């Protein structure tokens, strides 16, 4: 780039005002982050005050959601949020860690970059597009192919019993898994790359096979960081809204079967917020939002702390 001529940027003698004004403007912008955090927490509290005082703690474990009778309980949504997110983790963590292992330890150098780019592109696909694809492509396939097979072979478990609708907790878990795979994979990759080569060389020198090296020297060394990656994925999964809303079936029930429809905190807010006709109804939705915020913030902070202790200060960019 061309350097500006020195004369044009020499200071007017004695003027410190622009300097401190600039500094304060920058400080204000940085401080805005804190203002935003307080704003988010405060507004949700204000919005949910009515429901907080009316239902108190009972809100959290009442499973009744009846806008007509003005009775609201969060349990089915908390259940749905956790079950769908945990399903997603069960699917995404092994796949993500395996892919990260493949990328750091096995893949030929020429293959690595294209796969990494593909995973980044996957991360860029908007939630609503996954939802659309979920409704029209994934759900029919699951309903007609995968679910009947699961029911046939694992039907003795309560998890895989009951009628198959397509729209279901399991479909939501699968969609969320696809959406959190990129972040789990890329963070796992960072973690695995930070494992010193000395570890691997030592294991090879003892005559270990490739898998034994990965298991003994790499995975056990990186265990804590990989756990952090999974928790960060959980933080993303809990707040997923649009795609989940489109495939989970939106029924506030607690069912042992993964084929049954469910409902999550985020999707009930997305569906019912603009239809909430009474103040108490809206206030209850705000309280659901408050629960969602509290859980995601806690999970994210836990993940940050775990990853920072694993990778040092350089890891802070992962979120």
């Amino acid at each position, binding site marked *: 780039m061309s350097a500006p001529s020195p004369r044009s*940027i020499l200071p007017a003698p004695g003027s410190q005002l622009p300097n401190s*004004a600039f500094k304060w403007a*920058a400080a204000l*912008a940085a401080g805005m982050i804190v203002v935003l*955090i307080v704003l988010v927490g405060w507004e949700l509290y204000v919005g949910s005050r009515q429901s907080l005082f009316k239902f108190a703690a009972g809100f959290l474990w009442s499973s009744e959601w009846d806008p007509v009778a003005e009775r609201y309980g969060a349990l089915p949504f908390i259940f749905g949020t956790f079950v769908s997110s945990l399903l997603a983790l069960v699917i995404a963590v092994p796949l993500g860690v395996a892919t990260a292992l493949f990328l750091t330890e096995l*893949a030929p150098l020429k293959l690595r970059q294209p796969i990494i780019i593909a995973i980044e592109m*996957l991360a860029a696909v908007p939630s609503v597009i996954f939802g659309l*694809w979920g409704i029209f492509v994934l759900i029919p396939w699951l309903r007609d192919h995968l679910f009947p097979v699961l029911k046939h072979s694992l039907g003795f478990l309560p998890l895989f019993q009951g009628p198959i609708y397509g729209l279901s907790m399991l479909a939501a878990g699968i969609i969320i898994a696809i959406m959190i795979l990129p972040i789990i994979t890329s963070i796992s990759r960072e973690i695995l790359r930070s494992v010193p080569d000395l570890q691997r060389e030592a294991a090879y020198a003892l005559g270990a096979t490739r898998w034994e090296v990965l298991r003994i020297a790499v995975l056990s060394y990186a265990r804590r960081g990989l756990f952090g990656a999974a928790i960060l994925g959980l933080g993303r999964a809990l707040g997923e809204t649009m795609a989940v809303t489109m495939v989970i079936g939106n029924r506030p029930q607690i069912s042992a079967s993964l084929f049954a429809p469910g409902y999550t905190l985020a999707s009930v807010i997305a569906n019912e917020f603009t239809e909430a006709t009474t103040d108490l109804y809206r206030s209850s939705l705000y309280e659901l939002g408050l629960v969602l915020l509290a859980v995601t913030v806690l999970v994210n902070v836990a993940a940050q702390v775990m990853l920072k202790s694993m990778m040092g200060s350089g890891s802070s960019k992962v*979120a």
Partner: protein
Amino acid sequence: MAASPYLPTPRYARWRKWKSGAITGVLVACALAVIAPLFLVIYFLVARGSSSLDWNFFTQLPKPTGELGGGMANAIVGTLILLSMAAAIGVPFGVFGGIYLAEYGSDRFNYWIRFAADVLNGVPSIVWGMVIYLVLVVPFKTFSAYAGGVALGLMMVPLVMRTTEEVLVLVPQSYREAAMALGITRWKVITVIVVRTALKGIATGVIVALARIAGETAPLLFTALGNSFWSHNLNEPISALPLQIFAYGLSPYDDWHRQAWAGALVLMALILALNITVRILSRDRKSAA
């Protein structure tokens, strides 16, 4: 003597080798399974969306229920308007905040701001919608483009701030020292030397943030709301591609499903274009360094 792990028999050695090879195969299969959805999604977007992409789609308004045809012109323009408004908020606050972190802040202050920014990044997008609803929709008694733009803009702030800080820190300290030694005042050193050197990196960060919020639907549901007309006033509800895809995708009409796919294809193309721009920008940066 039974095979012991301590005294390897040839059979045991073969088993270990076989196991290692099998797991290598599993890892390859996992990597394929992870990238498969990308290609499946893109394949179906093109297969189902491209046939509905015609001139009308880009120039016409949505038709009322039951009438065939129509397009998403208002949603496309709405998305562009919302993105511009978001950038107008997210870029100045994000860049200035990044400048503070990289050039002024104390370590302790920076640590907490970074931490706060990461926490803010983790706030579910639907929660942003609820917050802005109380701040900008309830007091003004109308859903509006302003509310949607602000919701997206605030989501951009932590993203832009973190990337700006990262690229500013990469500018060599000697540039600053050389400029200071010439007697240039601090803020001019920062704007004319440091920021200008890192401009490409900052632009990359901004585009990454734009690509990330371009597909956001949840924060717009209770702020921009969406409509099926041209919005002539930013103080009225405005449509956006993600909102339109959501509404049409869940509708019972085949014609609307086709349009939802077409809209999704356009949105995906927009996001891919932003991502490719980022790749080109950052490739140049690497080769220049």
